């Protein structure tokens, strides 16, 4: 599940619940449909309300980084805590997307 807000150059995606191989497909399709229409300069992915995430979430972020690059835009990640942050660190996501400092 997710909620999307857009404001001019900014698109914010609030991801909600569990992100796994089962749920990721619908999430990325929903994000891409809006992103391809809006073509934002910055896509913010907010993980504050994500209760579980495995490496399927990494695929989701990397795919959106590629999409945003094709528009000349960037991805920012915020609100990732605990194991979700740990999975992102293993993947080295900080090298491809801006991450907030929240622990």
């Amino acid at each position, binding site marked *: 599940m997710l909620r999307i807000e857009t404001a001019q150059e900014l698109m914010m995606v609030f991801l909600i619940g569990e992100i*796994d191989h*089962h749920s990721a497909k619908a999430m990325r399709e929903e994000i891409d449909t809006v992103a391809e229409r809006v073509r934002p300069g910055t896509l913010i992915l907010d993980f504050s309300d994500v209760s*579980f995430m*495995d*490496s399927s979430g990494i695929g989701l972020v990397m795919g959106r980084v590629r999409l945003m690059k094709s528009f000349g835009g960037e991805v920012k990640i915020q609100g990732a805590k605990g194991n979700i942050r740990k999975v992102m660190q293993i993947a080295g996501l900080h090298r491809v997307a801006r991450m907030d400092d929240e622990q």
Partner: protein
Amino acid sequence: MNIINEMRLKIPSKSVNEGFARSAVASFAAQLDPTVAEIADIKTAVSEAVTNCIVHAYAGEIGMITLEARILEGGVFMVKIRDRGCGIADVKQAMEPLFTTAQGDERAGLGFSVMESFMDKVTVRSTLGKGTIVTLTKKIEQRAR
């Protein structure tokens, strides 16, 4: 090591079962009184192993996945995830970070890296055409109550 308790779960390789499998295993592991972080570690590792069965072992088909969890003496938690799918040709290569054979599906190739980071021990036994057994082990520190 003596077995304190054990359980077995058999499910078809449908992606909707990913959440069920990791939650069921985590519920069983809860007997060891793990921390929230330890439970999250187990859930994440099991989710990776089960997803591998669905995406790779049984690509394009539905087969059975068996999960056997054990609580051993000394607070050791062990879970075996077994499939009778295609098997892995080169286990060493499959376990390398970022290696994936599922390019089109936005798979990051990090399943085994995540399992290795979150569990104490990961062993993989695979026979081409016969299937794969992934064994995950983690010691749960016994805390004073």
